[in-house]
């Protein structure tokens, strides 16, 4: 009996002892919202900011295994840079440039193409000192300047005399374009003859030269002079939301003058304004170019209502104009295909920085069979550990139902350059996956990992943002997911290499409007090689 009691006591003692054999994990914090516990020290310490950045990325970033393949040791980054941020805390002054340089040292090895890292500089009072690793990488490319400076233009190709464009029954070139960018819509106000400021000046001259102006004419003249002063002041103001607010105030104030082109500019267009161009080029080649994937926001009133003031007639007019350009391309492609005369399709994504995934429905979704088009895999974080990942789940771009379109079997060319990114790259992948698809131009920028702008969606996958923009002293805009190609490779930061690589001859483009990249695409579609 004594022996058994001893055995039981021994076993109990052992159980107590073994419970201390396991070690406790470190306590982690979440940095997804403006939490005092997480961010308060960062208001007055660069070292605290760095710790949030380091931990937040450690927990949220989805590409750690990929970065490790490139030799990045994230723990070593902590050991190396924490003392340097602590040293900044001891400095009397820290300039924004110094802080940005430190952010560059820490984040430049990261391959995510969308990432934006922002620290507040409590020593200068600057709310946001930002560093973009993707931009830093892009700037180093030899084609950066050309890709950044030159936007696709149909100036040369839309002239019938140049023999590059098909004409309608009246002999007019089949070309349509529209812009809702601030440059596109407001440039006429400031720079176009007969419109905006130029029109105001003309009116002032006319009224000033009247021998006996009426009281009403005098009042109009004064209004015109006031408007001229306001517009000239605005012309020298950097474009911002404040600029747009003031511009719209002027539109309302001087509505009675009926100034051509002086119309309400929807503030939503400031972010989602796009250029769209359609041309039917020789050989029945349907060319479509757009500068951002925001078509959905123009086509669907439900989505548009989230971003734009759709009750304003000017907004509605521009939405319809964008839709008309796309519709012209879409119906032309469909009609020519049905007639058996479609020579090919060009989707020009040069300079297109991406946008809404739903836009895929209107672009590749109008060319491919119904049922969706798989284009890549997503891998989410599914744990707090650096390497806790989900299974790979297929990403699909929606495609139109069979009742709405016919599948396009003719050759399709997608064009990119070093500024084509995100949805532009996803679309490129989709086209490259098509049997009839070819990629022409320059290597894309390399930012395909998906992300969301909405902080409230953080808990969807427990990944995404660090901090809240304009609220927390650290803010990082980073992907919610790692995106893999269909052959299960990550190409983040590398971009997609074209099947046919061709440079844009900037001199020729500037002098004549002839576009060597577009010419190569046309040659391919016309000759098959």
């Amino acid at each position: 009996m004594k022996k058994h009691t001893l055995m039981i006591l021994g076993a109990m003692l052992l159980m107590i002892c073994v419970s201390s054999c396991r070690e406790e994990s470190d306590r982690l914090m979440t940095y997804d919202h403006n939490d005092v516990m997480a961010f308060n020290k960062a208001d007055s310490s660069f070292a605290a900011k760095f710790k949030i950045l380091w931990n937040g990325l450690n927990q949220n970033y989805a590409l750690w295994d990929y970065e490790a393949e490139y030799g990045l040791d994230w723990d070593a980054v902590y050991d190396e840079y924490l003392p340097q941020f602590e040293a900044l805390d001891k400095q009397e002054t820290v300039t924004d440039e110094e802080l940005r340089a430190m952010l560059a040292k820490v984040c430049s090895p990261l391959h995510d193409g969308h990432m934006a890292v922002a620290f507040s500089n409590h020593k200068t009072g600057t709310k946001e000192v930002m560093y973009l690793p993707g931009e830093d990488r892009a700037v180093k490319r030899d084609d950066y300047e050309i890709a950044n400076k030159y936007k696709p233009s149909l100036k040369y190709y839309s002239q019938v005399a140049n023999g590059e464009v098909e004409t309608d029954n009246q002999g007019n070139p089949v070309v349509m374009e529209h812009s809702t960018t601030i440059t596109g819509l407001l440039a006429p106000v400031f720079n176009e003859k007969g419109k905006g400021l130029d029109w105001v000046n003309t009116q002032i001259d006319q009224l000033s030269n009247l021998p006996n102006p009426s009281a009403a004419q005098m009042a109009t003249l004064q209004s015109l002079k006031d408007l001229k002063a306001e517009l000239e002041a605005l012309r020298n103001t950097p474009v911002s939301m404040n600029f747009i607010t003031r511009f719209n105030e002027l539109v309302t104030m001087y509505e009675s003058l009926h100034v051509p082109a002086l119309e309400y500019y929807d503030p939503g267009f400031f972010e989602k304004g796009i250029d769209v161009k359609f041309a039917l080029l020789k050989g029945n080649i349907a060319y479509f170019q757009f500068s951002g994937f925001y078509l959905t926001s123009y086509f669907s009133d439900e989505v548009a209502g989230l971003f734009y003031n759709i009750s304003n007639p000017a907004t509605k007019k521009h939405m319809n104009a964008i839709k008309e350009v796309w519709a012209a391309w879409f119906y032309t492609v469909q009609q020519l295909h049905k007639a058996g005369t479609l020579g090919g399709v060009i989707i020009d994504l040069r300079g297109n920085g991406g946008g809404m995934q739903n836009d895929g429905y209107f672009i590749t979704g109008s060319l491919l069979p119904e049922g969706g088009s798989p284009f890549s895999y997503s891998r989410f974080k599914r744990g707090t550990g650096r390497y806790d990942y989900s299974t790979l789940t297929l990403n699909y771009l929606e495609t139109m139902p069979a009742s709405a379109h016919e599948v396009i079997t003719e050759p399709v060319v997608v064009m990119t350059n070093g500024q084509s990114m995100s949805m532009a790259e996803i679309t490129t992948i989709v086209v490259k996956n098509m049997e009839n698809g070819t990629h022409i131009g320059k290597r894309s920028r390399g930012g395909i990992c998906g992300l969301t702008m909405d902080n409230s969606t953080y808990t969807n996958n427990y990944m995404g943002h660090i901090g809240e923009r304009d609220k927390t002293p650290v803010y990082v805009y980073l992907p919610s997911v790692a995106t893999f190609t269909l052959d299960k490779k990550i190409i983040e930061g590398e971009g997609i290499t074209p099947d046919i690589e061709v440079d844009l001859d900037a001199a020729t483009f500037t002098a004549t409007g002839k576009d060597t990249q577009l010419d190569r695409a046309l040659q391919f579609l016309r000759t098959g090689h």
Partner: protein
Amino acid sequence: MNSNKMKMKMKMKKKIVMALVAFLMVTTAQAQWRIGVTGGADYNVFNMDQQYMTDYKVDGRWGVTLGITGQYNVTDWLGVRADLNWTQKNYRHSRVVYSDVDYKLTNDYLQLPVMASFSFGGERLRGFCNLGVYGAYWLNSHRKGSDRNSFANYRITSFDEKVDFYDKRDQRWDCGLVGGVGLEYLITPHWAAQAEVRHYYSTTSTTKQYMRNKDYRYHSTTAIQLGINYIF
């Protein structure tokens, strides 16, 4: 005085030697080998800190354990036992808010528990208690379940796939403590049946400490197993 002390020491030594000889004679007379097979079910609990992932749920799962066993009895109440078994240490992690995020992990381990086996009771029916340590090797991992893709209109993806080990993260070796209690019934002088509840308490994290932030994850596995032994 000194000679007395010497004599007493000599007597003590003689007594110790005689006691050892007697003990050895007894144990040799009672020493017996036994070998057997075991099999049963186990329930594994995966212990990890979910941290701020508040709706992240980790649940235990049932698995299988099969093995062979060998025991050398030193006395009628004490033996040394070693098993070699294949034991599954399964678990499930899922989300409360998004029920379609559901991972069922199946992990196969080859284990070698070495234990002191204490027995007590009658001739035919005896109780026993095992206490010891174990070492194990993570053979493979498999996962089955579903996940949702917020970038594909929340499409649900079902999967049933092998999990590739990631050297930087995964600790393939597992060591810990093992203890069990059971009953043995002597069917014949050479055959005995056993029923045992055994607990494997891992003291080795399944993840290497590859990050500056320490993250420990442990298996705790309780097996209910039956065995049949041949006694030489």
